[in-house]
């Protein structure tokens, strides 16, 4: 992979991560906020993969994007939907 292509991908994903992380603060719906948090984790795992750390990428994808999101969703179910 060429240096330029790598830079473009990293900047794209970094930009999306920052945008999503700020968007979490402003969305009204709790469900959307949880899904966007999961997206930030998934983008982080792609970044780890690009930085040649596949084992960290798997950890981030399974814990950050799946397990943590699921526990947030259950917490939302407990407090009763929209908040």
């Amino acid at each position, binding site marked *: 992979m060429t240096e330029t292509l790598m830079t473009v991908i990293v900047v794209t994903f970094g930009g999306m991560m920052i945008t999503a992380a*700020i968007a979490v*603060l*402003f969305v009204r719906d709790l469900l959307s906020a949880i899904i966007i948090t999961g997206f930030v984790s998934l983008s982080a795992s792609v970044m780890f993969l690009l930085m040649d*750390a596949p084992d960290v990428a*798997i*950890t981030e994808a*399974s814990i950050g994007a799946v*397990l943590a999101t*699921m526990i947030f969703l*259950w917490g939302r179910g407990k407090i009763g939907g929209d908040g």
Partner: protein
Amino acid sequence: MIRTLTGLIIVLVLGAVAAAVIPEMQMREELQGVGYSYVSRGMDDTGSSNLVTAVIVAYRGLDTLGEVVVLFCASTAVVLILTLYPIGIKASEPSRVVAFTAKVLPAPILLFGVYFIAHSHISPGGGFPGGTVIASVFLLVMLGSSSVPDGRGRLPAIESLAGLSFGLLGFWGIMTVGQFLNNAFLGTGTPGTIVSGGLIPLISIAIGAKVASEFSGVFKAFRNTGGTV
């Protein structure tokens, strides 16, 4: 609105701190000290071609044992609280997409998780990530069925057995060569083959089983509506 702005301000301050600190960090071109020692001698010492696993399980095995204990305490606390004050997230009827996914995907994901653990000394992998992958299979199966899974007593048994075997593998080193968690007393084998790396594969399997059963137990506890775990 005030809460949103407070959050934004905290994020901006943290970002400013990071932006100020990162240019000052000196990236070393060459490894020094203990890092150099690990990279240059790691493969001969441990027989593991994955140096990350060699450091986590062999050189810093005691730290990993501590980490396992911390995880054990945390999951025990979560399960205890959820047993005393059950949330009882209702098992709603899964949608067709979820039900179909929960039928098709568990086997390949489970296989990947087991591969990830068993090959942690050869290719990127390890007990912790592999264990969480297996736990996500448990989660998927749980979401795909409307009933509460019944693994009464089995999950804690696997968890305890795996944690105990980690400690016993450490004591095996004391008995044979007088060093706790010694990795190489069985012989390290040829790096890159499946039977190599001394105790690393065995410890990885123990960690993987422990992490998988711990996370599965936590998920099960969320569905707990009262009664015994």
